[in-house]
């Protein structure tokens, strides 16, 4: 069989495999719309909160107004006890509350540093963070105003006083994702994982469909000549990795080009830099998929294995939970999945503007995985080929 014939056979095998096509084209394209869907509003806004104002002074009402004026908070209820606020909270009407204690204004005048009480529903961390951020922001403005007015009362210049309400200013700048948008956070990482998982399934389905211990062997071999049994393993693996990688290169461009652009996600990396990373990534995934396909007795189990690994892989990739806080053993296992170095690499390159020369360690890791899974699939496939040839 010539290279050309082999490539055509392989092409036909891929494009006549319905579950594979559904996973690759259906999955990748549907997910590109479905997965970002919950996050399209980017940041939670206008959380409903209640106010418990026990002070009743003019200042306390000013605090309410300031809190209500932040984009994070919307005061929708006024109650008189913490219990009332808690009832509202557990029935889902509010997500937090602000309490201004009795004599707040008097204590402020007496310079007693009176407290304001903030509470948020920590069942949902993003909601909680939003509520607290709004409350802290509005009261720190108030605190600054109080300091300025005190300094002015003591006879300082207004202009000077308003710049001196703190001894040392700390200016915190969110970097790489300036808007703190959730979509910008999740999508660039999860899209890499979607490519990873669907390619694993595709390559696994293709291989296991050919090498599983099937009863319907006669059906398949009749119109396909079992080209995977008559060609050398090296040739099959070469053609397979070439074809699947090319298909995925197109899908990769769709994700990193069209999708990212339409969602307004950073695209800092140059195409050539992306290519240096994507090639070992796709090759290692094709080979890992082949290994899974060869180890598994029935082809539907490929999807099972890949599906079950998804959430553990997301959470151990290091962009959600810091790697330094992950147990070493889990971290080591996660490094064996091409998704881990790939997610980190693409985020650094495309989102954070790191240079490709600085990614040498990740590239070495990806190429080592290519080698590891390439050789494993070679050995396993050769063994399977011998077993199957013996049967016929």
């Amino acid at each position: 069989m010539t290279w050309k014939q082999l490539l055509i056979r392989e092409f036909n095998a891929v494009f006549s495999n319905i579950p594979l096509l559904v996973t690759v084209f259906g999955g990748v394209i549907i997910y590109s719309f479905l997965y970002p869907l919950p996050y399209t509003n980017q940041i939670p806004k206008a959380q409903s909160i209640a106010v418990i104002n026990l002070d009743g002074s003019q200042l306390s009402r000013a605090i309410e107004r300031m809190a209500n004026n932040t984009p994070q908070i919307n005061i929708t209820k006024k109650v008189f006890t913490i219990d009332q606020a808690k009832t509202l909270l557990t029935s889902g009407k509010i997500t937090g509350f602000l309490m201004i204690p009795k004599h707040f204004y008097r204590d402020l005048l007496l310079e007693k540093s009176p407290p304001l009480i903030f509470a948020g529903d920590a069942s949902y961390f993003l909601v909680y963070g939003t509520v607290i951020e709004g409350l802290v922001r509005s009261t720190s403005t108030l605190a600054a105003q109080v300091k300025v007015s005190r300094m002015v009362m003591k006879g300082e210049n207004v202009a000077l006083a308003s710049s001196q309400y703190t001894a040392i200013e700390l200016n915190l700048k969110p970097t790489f994702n300036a808007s703190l948008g959730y979509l910008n956070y999740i999508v660039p990482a999860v899209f890499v994982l979607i490519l990873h998982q669907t390619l694993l399934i595709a390559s696994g389905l293709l291989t296991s469909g050919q090498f599983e211990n099937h009863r319907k062997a006669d059906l398949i071999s009749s119109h396909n000549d079992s080209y995977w049994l008559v060609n050398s393993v090296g040739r099959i693996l070469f053609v397979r990795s070439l074809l699947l990688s090319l298909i995925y290169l197109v899908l990769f461009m769709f994700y990193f080009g069209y999708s990212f652009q339409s969602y307004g996600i950073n695209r800092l990396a140059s195409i050539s830099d992306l290519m240096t990373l994507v090639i070992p990534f796709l090759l290692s995934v094709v080979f890992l998929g082949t290994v899974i396909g060869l180890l598994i007795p029935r082809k539907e189990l490929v999807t099972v294995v890949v599906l079950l690994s998804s959430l553990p892989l997301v959470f151990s990739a290091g962009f959600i939970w810091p790697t330094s806080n992950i147990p070493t053993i889990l971290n080591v296992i996660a490094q064996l999945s091409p998704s881990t170095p790939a997610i980190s690499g693409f985020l650094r390159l495309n989102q954070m503007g790191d240079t490709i020369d600085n990614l040498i360690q990740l590239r070495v890791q990806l190429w080592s995985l290519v080698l590891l899974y390439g050789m494993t699939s070679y050995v396993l496939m050769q063994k399977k080929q011998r077993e199957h040839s013996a049967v016929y």
Partner: protein
Amino acid sequence: MNFLQTFKTEWQLISHDAWLKVLLFVMPIILGFIIWGLFHVGIARDLPIGVVDHDNSSISRALIRSYDASPTLQVNHHYIDEQSGSKALREGSIYALVILPDGLAKNTILGKVPKITAFYNSQYILIGKLVNSSLLSAHGTYVAQLETLKYLTISNERVEQAIGQALPISSQITPLFNSNTHYGQFLVTAVIPAMWQIIIMVTTVLVWSKGLRDASENTWLSSISYRHQLIKLLPYALIFWLQGIVYLSVFYGALNWPMHGSWLVLVAAQLFLVLACMSVTTLIFFITLDATRAMSLVAGFSAPAFAFMGVTFPTTDMPILAQIWRALLPISHYINLQIKQVNYDSPIQSTVTDFISLLLFLSLLYVAKLIFLKRKKRLGSINKDGPAMQRGDNS
């Protein structure tokens, strides 16, 4: 056939099927351990940050020490210039870069309010927000100390009043229902149910497709009765239910995470979830009548469920389309109920809608039956017509 008998025969089938055994009994434990292992620390500690100290004074060093003293942060890189610092920030080896300007100490003493700039990595939002708030509070504490000291030296005020000067308003921040903002309690209790849904659906496909494995589609379809097949699913439902009860007992028993609500309501909801998931899967199976294709659809359906559950990103801020898709996933109704029970101890009336939603999924069993009967009927007419047909591919 009585139930005990069914359980016995199914048990025998399970014990001969290694994959079923693994999925039913081993995988849930391994996956549970992995997810718990990832977040068991609960509170992120010692996140690496870097500093560029252009001032190198006692004040700049004290500030760096106070950042380092924050349990969340660890200053473990000192850079000589912004360039090498920003390189480290870009490669992710530090999560923030703090730049202390020249003349920091001098300007502080002169009352000129020097400005420190800190760049934190907000690409990793969760980590970024932690770094942000820890830096703010560490900085605030140090500055308040500095100002208190200043007020004490320039006037004859008491310490208490000097603090009142430095911090005119104090704030008490209370995270309700998760008093130390423990990430394990927050994420693990949502990730495990999401994986549980995957396990239930995947295993149900395998159970359904067992019949197809040994016989052709036609012989299988004509040999079975729908009701009988459903009864055969019951033992699996019980095992899935047991998985759920086990993870709840681990969270709120062994790990001692707080649980305020009713165990009875929660455990009942779990049974409803199991049945809902199995109904969806049954429908998917009868639409495809093929193990691999059913598995692909189940994967597509259940894999992104976690994003839609509304735990990490609030449901109220999702667009309507996302909320509709969310409502089609059994696990989102269950997680509503779990949070309401565990955290809020809501009265049972408030969980009725969640129960009804889960119950509605059971109607899919009827739709699946219609599809089954239609296929069987067509099969009958084909057989009557005579020629042996090839596998009918209708999907």
